[in-house]
């Protein structure tokens, strides 16, 4: 089954067996920010952006990405500068083992791109599909609210 899609700004053409998921493909391409967690859509460790919406890559078969735009956190920064959400997570101490962090940041980025209002309930809703078993949620929520509010204010000024 042949598919063509955009991955982190690059056009990809590839062929796969029907059973292959986007998560399996991405990890085979050494995109390791996409974690193999539960494989059931429960934990959100494999979160990616599909046309700017957060989704679980373990639940997306490769045939469904045809014509789509896929983004992982690898596209968010180079080795010199970080994405504002990454910076705020660092400042806030919002990551411990880091396993869930890429998924959380992508879910928050999707919320920002929706143009929805930024407040704690919205941020908590955006992170509802991302499980964390060490840091917890207080600091990621705080970092998300702070970063996205700052991003909006900055956007409003320009």
């Amino acid at each position, binding site marked *: 089954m042949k598919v063509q899609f955009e991955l982190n700004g690059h056009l990809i053409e590839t062929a796969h067996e029907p059973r292959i998921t986007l998560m399996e493909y991405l990890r085979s391409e050494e995109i390791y920010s996409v974690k193999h967690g539960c494989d059931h859509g429960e934990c959100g460790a494999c979160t990616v952006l599909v046309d700017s919406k957060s989704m679980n890559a373990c639940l997306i078969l490769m045939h469904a990405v045809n014509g789509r735009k896929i983004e992982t956190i690898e596209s968010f920064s180079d080795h010199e500068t970080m994405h504002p959400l990454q910076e705020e997570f660092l400042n806030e101490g919002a990551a411990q083992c880091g396993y869930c962090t890429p998924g959380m940041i992508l879910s928050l980025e999707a919320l920002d791109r929706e143009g929805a209002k930024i407040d704690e309930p919205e941020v908590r809703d955006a992170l*509802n599909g991302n499980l964390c078993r060490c840091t917890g949620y207080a600091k990621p929520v705080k970092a998300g609210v702070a970063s996205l509010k700052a991003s909006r204010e900055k956007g409003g000024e320009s």
Partner: protein
Amino acid sequence: MWSSIKEIIKPDNLSEASVLLQKKGSVLFAGGSYLVSQKDPQIHTLIDINHLINDTIEMRGENLHIHTGCTLQEIVNSNDERLNSAILASCPSKNIRNQRTIGGEIANFRTDSDLLIFLFTAGTQLVLSQSESPIQLSKWDGEGIILEVVIPKHEVKMERVALLDSAPAFVIVGLNNLNGNRTACVGGKTSSITHYHTMIQPSEAGVRKFMDEVEASFNDDHLGSSIYKRKLVGTLIQEMEGVR
């Protein structure tokens, strides 16, 4: 990991999809609800109907028309507060709401889906691919491809009892009381969805029969006996009606 899936077919039209669906081991596939809720090793063929169904939402008169390709998140972004509450209770994860369609949610027919109980209670109708007129969701036999979900004007109230807010509820009760049309609906960890509708004041015998059916739909388990759950349902309905 989805090793049972050997083939994905994109039919040219809905008639072809219906024929393909008759084959053993085949299921319809749109947003991925199938993948989320089931991992049946007997399933080897997915029939992708994404390109054959619409994903629009519109008000026509007093009815909300939702095409079955709509994801749950797209519905949340519209403005029916009570419907949205049911969706958020059914599917807390936004990642999943971005994938799961309303058609998939109905087709999976989970009795512990707050959204399904809401749709039953609201008197929802389904437009099917090979049927000339819409049918009541409560009378749907699972046959045919759902094209459109029609939710009439409603006054649905919902209550749920779960061990955690984010956990599936073991008792879900819906009550709709609009212009003398009264509907009660009970689901949760049940064998079926129990449904009661009357256009007049409910009779004592009618209510007793409904509650007997409710009790029979529950099992005795670690969450309580079926008699306890029957009483819980009765209490919730009384609270919703403002009796208590």
